[in-house]
């Protein structure tokens, strides 16, 4: 038995991720070094990061895959996205504190990811804990109303002992767990009602805090997970229709939604004030052209929130169109690998959890990239794993940890299958 798992691990290690790992490490090293020499002097922090990034990447990938038979490709691509964020921030921010903080957040996030990998493999009580988690989720989302503050027109931050955190970010994996538990084992429609009610309450709270991006993400993730679990097409369409009606109502009733849409339709009518953000984002992307202005060149800081919500515009300006499209391709690859993990999972809970994580990641990336490039109305969500910000980073990496943990479970299950088959053959 143990020998078989050993063999599985070896097979996994043989799978061709070594080249990918090398390429990612080389990218991290060279671009960080390039950034180090961009100014008049040499940035010691960048030099340090030039060595630290590949080192951490190498240790994380080899270390974690030694312990658990995780999907290495997903892990490497996740680390690539992390480093793109840190490199871009190093190249464009004025102070060196921002990239350093981001590096610390990333380390914290990797810790959370490791915990996630361990946790999902050893946690069996998901059905029992479902409603406790749901309560926690609602309470946490509600917290900004009690101890929060307004932040860029949304009330979605709370202060916890000196650091401000965004509960809507942290509650994403929790919500997915609750939904996966509620929707697992092919429930009848009536049985899903409490779970749907829970999701509706979450969306309502978020809407009251004007966190439109989060509302949209929570809503769409719920709808897609519901469809996958119940294959109830009619109800799914009805749900989406209700979402559209709600969107229209929101448009009618809420002036800030109308504002957003008006800016989206034509930001050039008010390029100095309301459309400023989007116009500057488009200008930054356009200035980058095919090959970009070059790392550390250009002036992406013209775009407000260049380091968080609009980091995609910054990346496009620095690295250029081709790189930006490749970056999107990296997300697609993670999504595809993640879907395979979801489809190979043995229990519907794990399957749905992995699926939810992947769908959320995809939707969030689409929303913010579309928002940056005027293809979709702008909603203030982060670009997963790239944008500056601790809450989003730690939460997304924890989700990725759960995904990786499920992949490790799958690998172990497959090894056990092979083992059983061989034993059977031996007996015959």
């Amino acid at each position, binding site marked *: 038995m143990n020998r078989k798992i050993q063999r599985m691990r070896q097979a996994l290690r043989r799978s061709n991720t070594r080249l990918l790992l090398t390429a990612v490490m080389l990218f991290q090293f060279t671009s960080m070094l390039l950034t180090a020499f961009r100014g008049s002097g040499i940035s010691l922090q960048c030099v340090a990061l030039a060595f630290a990034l590949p080192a951490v990447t190498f240790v994380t990938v080899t270390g974690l895959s030694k312990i658990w038979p995780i999907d290495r490709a997903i892990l490497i691509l996740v680390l690539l996205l992390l480093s793109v964020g840190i490199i871009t921030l190093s190249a464009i921010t004025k102070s060196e504190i921002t990239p350093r903080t981001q590096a610390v957040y990333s380390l914290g996030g990797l810790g959370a990811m490791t915990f996630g990998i361990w946790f999902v493999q050893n946690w069996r009580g998901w059905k029992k804990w479902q409603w406790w988690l749901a309560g926690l989720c609602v309470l946490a989302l509600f917290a900004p109303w009690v101890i929060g503050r307004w932040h860029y027109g949304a009330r979605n931050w709370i202060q916890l002992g000196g650091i401000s955190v965004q509960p809507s970010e942290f509650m994403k994996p929790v919500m997915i767990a609750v939904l996966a538990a509620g929707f697992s084992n092919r429930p009848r429609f009536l049985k899903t009602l409490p779970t749907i009610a829970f999701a509706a309450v979450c969306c309502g709270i978020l809407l009251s805090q004007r966190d439109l991006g989060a509302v949209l993400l929570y809503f769409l993730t719920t709808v897609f997970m519901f469809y996958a679990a119940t*294959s109830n097409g009619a109800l799914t369409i009805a749900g989406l229709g209700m979402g559209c009606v709600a969107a229209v109502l929101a448009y009618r009733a809420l002036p800030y939604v109308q504002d957003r849409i008006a800016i989206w339709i034509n930001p*050039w009518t008010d390029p100095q004030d309301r459309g400023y953000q989007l116009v500057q984002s488009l200008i930054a992307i*356009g*200035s980058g*052209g095919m090959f970009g202005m070059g790392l550390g060149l250009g002036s992406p800081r013209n775009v407000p929130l260049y380091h968080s919500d609009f980091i995609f515009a910054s990346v496009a300006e620095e690295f250029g169109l081709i790189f*930006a499209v490749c970056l999107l*391709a990296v997300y*697609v690859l993670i999504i595809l690998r993640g*879907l395979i993990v979801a489809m190979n999972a043995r229990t519907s809970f794990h399957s749905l959890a992995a699926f939810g994580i*992947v769908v959320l990641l995809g939707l969030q990336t689409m929303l913010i990239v579309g928002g940056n490039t005027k293809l979709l109305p702008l909603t203030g969500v982060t670009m997963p794993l790239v944008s500056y910000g601790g809450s989003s980073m730690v939460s997304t990496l924890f989700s990725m940890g759960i995904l990786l943990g499920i992949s490790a479970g799958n690998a172990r299950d497959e090894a056990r299958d092979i083992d059983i088959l061989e034993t059977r053959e031996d007996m015959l």
Partner: protein
Amino acid sequence: MKELRRNMRIVGTLVVVAFLVLSGFFALTVFEQGSIWASNSHNTRLSVSKVQRGDITDRDGVVMATTVDGQRVYASDTATRRALAVTLGDTSGMSGTGIEGVYSSHLLDLSDSFAGRIKSLVSGAPRVGSSVQLTVDSELTAAIASRFPAGYRGAVVVMNYKTGEILAFVSKPDYDPYDAGTDRVEDTAYLNRCLQGRYTPGSVFKIVTLASALQNDPGVVGQTFLCSGSWNYENGSIVCAGQNSHGNIDLQTAFARSCNVTFGKLAYQLGFSRLRATAEQLGFNENLKFDDFAVYNSAFPTVQNNTSELVWAGIGQGTVLVTPMHMALITSAVANNGVMMEPLLVRRIEGTSGNVVRQGISRENRRLFSEPVAQTIAAYMYGAVQNGTATRAKIDGYTVCGKTGSAETSNDKNVETNAWFTGFIYDEAHPYAAAAVVEQGGAGSRTATELSAFALQAALYFVG
């Protein structure tokens, strides 16, 4: 579980496809519009850009815009500077058609080669953008602008009908590029009326009606018409300017004297669909997008509501609209045996190392008229200059062909008509065409014709 997997596959495919569509859309929009975004006036990178804006020169190499110590410098003479601003635009992006804005990605080398960047990185020298040479003649432009009736609005286009080169764009009111963005600039001065001014053509549209008649019924040449100064059709009437009764006249004389009754009858005889077909064949109701610039749509009614509309459309009144540039193009095609050349504004764009980034090459755009039709129209236009309404267009030693127009823009008879002239010099060595409109300039046979004759003479003098 099997079903779960299937659903996941469906949703997953959906997400991935959405992603691909998004990426594709993103790449496409950036590819198509990226340089437009980048050359937007709100791009502060342009003003702080370390790249020095390239020069803009005219066809003879006269520098019309250059950069000295980081400052953009235009002609020192105010009148010349204002006249050229129509063509050149300004660095603050107020003009929508100016070279400074439209070609800023070249002038600033935003789309520059990788090699150029490396070179400047190594040498440490500031990067200089490409220089743009235009086909216009700066002296000609200034001369026409100075001759434009003071206080009036309007536009003049001069072009070479054999090569398609634009020799001058004049649009009034004009503005000082140094004042761009301030309130010292007159209303609508940022417009290039040659390309963006949509005017009622009046009698210059008779060229189109004539073309339609010649195409559909070559026998019309021999037909005589009776003009008693006015003609009552089913539910209205049409009159000739000043209630002139032209009597029994043939088509050529009617054209030369710009007889409204004859052309109203001609339009009626042709019918709406045939007239419309000819107009659209000549580019009406079409976005005329050329490589170097775009021209606002000229308009011809697409549905006929009553006979009145058809009869008045025949003499270029009613809802018919045309830009001076489009009129110049139609005239050029008449002069050029029916072929419209691709209009050129940019002669060449040259990189700092002398490499040619872009070269304007004369080429046919499309055929507007058949050869015999073009020749007949040209002969009729010659008649108009010899013994018709356009006699003021005569230039000693040259064969000039032309057509005048006085377009009514208001039912109030106290409002002066817009004065029009469009014509050309019939000469292999000096193939110049001009179209001019003076808003509320009165009869076209006077203001616009004199202005155009001057423009053509000036072209002979300055361009050769």
